[in-house]
């Protein structure tokens, strides 16, 4: 713990310090705090026992107006969704969420509402997520919301119940870590490459015990969609949360959203939001600096998000590593079916997945469509585009992007988590290799025996056309 962790800091503070301090309801001498939670997002997999707990103890939801529920993990993405979920357990989990949301009176986007989608895409889209807020959800990718300068992280089921019942969470302060991306990204390099490159540098445990603030010119230059992609994977670097200080880009995105403040409240909110940045001289427990110009389009080769290499690289050998990673690399290479020394661009793929809370937003679909326009998937490669929400899907259709994907041979699906974690029927077959825009390349993540290479939407689209991993910069002149 940093020296400033227990008491309220009085000197220069980080953005994390400021948001944390602003939400302390009660602080014990040992630094244990009761933190107020502004937004509680809920999905069907981690919430049933929490609601059951409330029911058994006769408790109500403390702030249903601050609680937002949406089914996303189990939902089918096929056009026949309206007919219901085939798997009985998945169907029951969604039915329970339906019942709980209505019985406890929380905000709810049911499966067939056009606003339904992945909880981490719906929250920002509807203006629930605002700068300076605390946001929690029983889901590790809650880190996504940090893109707005909100303190956002995943919690367990007991904590879900605690937040439902009290609108607070018992917390101790994490340490402060700064990740600065200086300069300007080169063409063909995206937010996904930034976040993967950071994990490649720090490792999956590099952020343990910390909250990361991403800053620097390259971060400032990102859209909100790109910033969400960066913060989404803070958890893959081990951090409790990722944060980006709000600025005009943030305010422009938020302005006019359904649940964003309006009129006088908007002006008052803006005045506070503009103070939400780290002070000069604030204490950082850890600092990582990367030049944007040094980041290439990257892909993962193994079964950990830290197994990152520039697309120009070759499959590593276990002996390239040290300590426990030697055996882990050996196991990864065996699972992935790869031979050390193989150029990454020689790795043939069977599938392309474009979607997830990491890369399922409109900008991601536009970027992928730009690469795919007038092209077709290579023979034997199947492709699936799963928009992050019903509204993303509608927007894409309005722009004609769906036709680009369909013409290229992709399936154009309904919104949900889909293949990213394979809780619904969208899964890889054993041995099937996928260029994926999602966030985890763990063994079996996208289906038992499935092989996942993580990359950006334009890299995944380019791989689909080529039939193998490829440097998107060789496929066409692309703009950053």
């Amino acid at each position, binding site marked *: 713990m940093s020296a400033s962790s227990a008491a309220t800091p009085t000197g220069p503070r980080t953005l994390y310090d400021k948001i944390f301090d602003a939400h302390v*309801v009660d602080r014990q001498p040992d630094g244990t705090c009761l933190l107020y939670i502004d937004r509680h997002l809920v999905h069907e997999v981690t919430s*049933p026992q929490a609601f*059951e707990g409330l029911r058994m*103890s006769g408790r109500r939801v403390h702030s249903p107006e601050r609680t937002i529920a949406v089914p996303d993990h189990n939902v089918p993405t096929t056009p026949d969704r309206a007919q219901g979920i085939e798997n009985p357990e998945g169907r*029951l989990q969604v039915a329970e969420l339906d019942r709980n949301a209505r019985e406890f009176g929380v905000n709810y986007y049911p499966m067939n509402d056009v606003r339904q989608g992945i909880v981490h895409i719906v929250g920002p889209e509807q203006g629930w997520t605002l700068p300076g807020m605390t946001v929690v959800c029983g889901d590790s990718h809650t880190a996504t919301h940090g893109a707005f300068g909100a303190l956002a992280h995943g919690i*367990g089921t*007991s904590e879900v119940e605690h937040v439902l*019942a*009290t609108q607070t969470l018992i917390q101790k302060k994490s340490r402060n870590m700064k990740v600065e991306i200086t300069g300007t990204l080169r063409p063909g390099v995206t937010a996904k490459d930034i976040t993967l490159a950071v994990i490649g540098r720090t490792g999956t445990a590099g952020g343990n015990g910390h909250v990361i603030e991403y800053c620097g010119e390259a971060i400032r230059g990102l859209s909100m969609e790109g910033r969400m992609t960066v913060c989404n994977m803070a958890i893959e670097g081990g951090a409790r949360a990722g944060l980006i200080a709000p600025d005009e880009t943030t305010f422009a995105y938020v302005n006019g959203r359904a649940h*964003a403040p309006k009129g006088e409240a908007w002006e008052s909110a803006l005045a506070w939001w503009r103070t939400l940045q780290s002070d000069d001289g604030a204490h950082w427990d850890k600092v990582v600096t990367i030049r944007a110009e040094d980041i290439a389009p990257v892909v993962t080769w193994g079964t950990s998000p830290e197994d990152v290499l520039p697309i120009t690289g070759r499959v590593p050998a276990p002996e390239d590593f040290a300590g426990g990673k030697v055996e882990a690399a050996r196991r990864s290479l065996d699972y992935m079916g790869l031979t050390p020394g193989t150029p990454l661009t020689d790795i043939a793929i069977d599938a392309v997945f474009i979607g997830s809370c990491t890369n399922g937003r409109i900008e991601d679909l536009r970027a992928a469509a730009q690469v795919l326009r007038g092209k077709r998937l290579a023979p034997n490669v199947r492709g699936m585009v799963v928009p992050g929400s019903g509204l993303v899907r509608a927007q894409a259709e309005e722009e004609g992007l769906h036709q680009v994907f369909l013409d290229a041979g992709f399936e154009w699906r309904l919104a949900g988590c889909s293949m990213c974690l394979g809780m619904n029927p969208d899964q890889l077959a054993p041995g099937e290799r996928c260029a994926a825009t999602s966030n985890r390349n763990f063994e079996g993540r996208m289906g038992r025996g499935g092989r996942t290479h993580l990359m950006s939407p334009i890299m995944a689209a380019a791989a689909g056309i080529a039939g193998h991993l490829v440097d998107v910069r060789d496929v066409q002149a692309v703009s950053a």
Partner: protein
Amino acid sequence: MDKFTTLTGIAAPMPLVNIDTDMIIPKQFLKTIHRSGLGKNLFDEMRYNADGTENPDFVLNKPAWRGAEIIVAGDNFGCGSSREHAPWALKDFGIRSVISTSFADIFYNNCFQNGILPVVLPQDAVDALMRDAGHGANARITVDLERQVVTGADGTEYPFQIDPHRRHNMLEGLDDIGLTLAKSAEIGGYEQRIAQSQPWV
């Protein structure tokens, strides 16, 4: 949460070290929407044969220990996955205390969330209690949280340490939610301040 003061009961001996939460409740039972009802699948893969029949060699299937309320276990009980389904399954079966030389951290915390008392004792004490446990109903063990002692069948007392706050919460039957609700005035005060200063939140 249920209070825990004193428990006298049959203890089941499980000397195996590193009993992980996957053994306690395998992953296929995590799709449930309930905390309750997991007891029948406690230690599922050790307890049942592939055809679903009981494995007669497993301790909790033997007549002497079917009514066990305590487990005396080998080192590092509850390691692995953080699944809260593990203490849920133990409690649903009827286990209210586990005695070992050491516990995995998350499981240890999860026990307190669910009214199960994990007791850490030195190796020689665990060895002695393991022998008692082997005698089933003929050698009942007493776990006294108030006095912080475990009493073996022969009357030998084994004192144990526990965090004072956790002890207090267990004795009073308080869970985190109950404690936090006791600070309702502070939460309400915070909400009133925010309603004034940040009405959009």
